């Protein structure tokens, strides 16, 4: 049994232990045993240009079977094009890809599409038809025998909390409910790989939480989820690894790993009044690498080992005669990682 995940360079990563809040708000440990004999999705120098305009350029990464993989990037970064490449809706200009173990090509398109499901950003329902008719149509397109279709449809609707609404006209549903039906449609075939494009867009907080729990459930069932989202906190909470794309692939890794790779460890300090000579004070503490002012009487001190430096730093500040209000390890969010990478691109463009 192989280990689970790889980074963008193909290096194997450790299995991860994550903490996920339950519906009741408690925290439960989730051991993600991402077991993969082979990658569920594989891209090698994948490129798509429309005319001379590159939509995605030279992207290389793997997504392991059973992994929840977040795909982030600003509008126009090429996320949708990448999903369309994997779902064989558009042909690559260069490079290769494999999905569910099948090389992406014109000839294998139908076979790949029968093993995956794609939930597009807009629900894409036939508004004059009922919820059941909508799903029955797609069950037919996937070749589900009519004898099984009814059970599959009701099971999928039940999974998204819509079992009681199967005879409602799709046009009479709110945007959030249509989104749920769209998700039910993606679950109809029990796909091996599921592409979700902004699955919680337009959903209220309760429905959002239900969808997130559903994604957790899919992970537990070994379904590979390729999640495109703008919600960084959602990606951080749900995804084993994330990739940030801005035409080219900027970074791939577990959220914690990305933070470590982009930001050095630091301590955040806030005092009652500005320090008289912060440079002398911080330099005198062993283990510090530098500092910067981040507000009025607020500082960020770069350190090698926050736990080792914090007590000495606290003593030094108190000894200087200035009241210490706050001292903690700097916490960088996925948003910081994202903004750091995307703003670099903005700078380059300028």
């Amino acid at each position, binding site marked *: 049994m192989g280990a689970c995940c790889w980074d963008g360079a193909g290096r194997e990563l450790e299995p991860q232990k994550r903490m996920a809040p339950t519906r009741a708000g408690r925290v439960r440990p989730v051991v993600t045993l991402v077991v993969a004999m082979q990658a569920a999705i594989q891209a090698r120098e994948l490129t798509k240009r*429309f005319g001379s305009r590159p939509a995605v350029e030279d992207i290389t990464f793997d997504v392991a079977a059973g992994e929840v993989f977040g795909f982030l990037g600003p509008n126009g970064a090429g996320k*949708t094009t990448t999903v*369309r490449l994997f*779902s*064989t*809706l*558009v*042909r690559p200009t260069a490079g290769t890809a494999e999905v569910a173990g099948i090389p992406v090509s014109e000839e294998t*398109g*139908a*076979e790949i*599409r*029968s093993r*995956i*499901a*794609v939930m*597009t950003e*807009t*629900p*894409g*329902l*036939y*508004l*004059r*038809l009922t919820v059941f*008719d909508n799903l*029955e*149509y*797609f*069950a*037919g*397109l*996937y*070749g589900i*025998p*009519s004898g099984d279709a009814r059970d599959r449809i009701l099971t999928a609707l039940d999974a998204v909390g819509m079992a009681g609404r199967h005879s409602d006209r799709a046009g009479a549903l709110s945007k959030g409910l249509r989104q749920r039906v*769209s998700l039910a*449609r993606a679950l109809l075939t029990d796909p091996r790989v599921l592409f979700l494009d902004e699955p919680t867009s337009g959903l209220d907080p309760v429905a959002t939480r239900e969808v997130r729990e559903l994604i957790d459930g899919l992970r537990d069932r070994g379904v590979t989820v390729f999640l495109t989202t703008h919600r960084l906190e959602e990606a951080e909470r749900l995804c084993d690894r994330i990739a940030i794309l801005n035409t080219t692939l900027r970074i791939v890794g577990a959220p914690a790993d990305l933070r470590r790779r982009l930001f050095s460890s630091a301590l955040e300090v806030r005092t009652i009044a500005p320090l008289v000579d912060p440079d002398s004070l911080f330099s005198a503490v062993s283990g510090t690498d530098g500092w910067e002012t981040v507000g009025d009487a607020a500082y960020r001190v770069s350190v090698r080992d926050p736990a080792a430096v914090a007590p000495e730093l606290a003593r030094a500040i108190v000894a200087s005669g200035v009241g210490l209000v706050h001292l903690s390890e700097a916490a960088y969010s996925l948003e910081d990682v994202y903004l750091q990478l995307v703003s670099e691109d903005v700078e380059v463009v300028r």
Partner: protein
Amino acid sequence: MNGRVRAVLRKELREFRRNTLVVSTMVVLPLFFIAIPLASVLAVNSGTAPEAINGIVGGALLAFFLVPLMLPTLIAGYAVVGEREQGTLEPVLTTPVRREELLIGKALAAVVPSTAMAYALFGLFVTVVQLFARRDVVSLVLEPSQVVAIALFTPLLATFSIWVGLAISARSSDIRVAQQLSAVAMLPMVGVLWLFAFQVIAPTVTVAVAGAILLAVLDLGAWRIVSALFDRERLLTRYGGP
């Protein structure tokens, strides 16, 4: 019939049934097509010149060629542009359905009701004519070449119409524009049928059968062109795609 084709056909028919614009047009337009020819043939009397009778019956029969030619264009407009406008095109294209299955399902959904409607109208026309029209008018209407032409041309014209409509719909971004362009694209065909209905081309059974064979070949060619146009990438990334 393949299960996917059946699924497309069933969905299309369900959608049309719940689209009041399509249903009302499918009902009103054929009534208009039958009302005028009926009125004109029933108005024939002993004072009407034989050449005029030929013209009146020819005009009536032309109307029955127009039904299978025009009705599918109404439906074809929705076939691709309608899907694109509703945002359903991409979800459908991400399924394993093959382009041929999708096209045949959509085509059958337009051809079957249009052909059925055209045959029903012709049957009604013939019945009324036999009951109330003059003998010379009845014999002209039931001319074997004309009956064979109606029987053979109707499904073939509807098929041709739907292929042209689908080709235009695949390359349009607006339903009404697609419908209007499809109707305009039918005009050359109407011209040929006019020559037949008004006996400029001698209407014999052989000519009718030869015409049907020619139409079948045209249908086959049009099917190949539409099939090539129905490329997933082209449908999604051009002609108003996201």
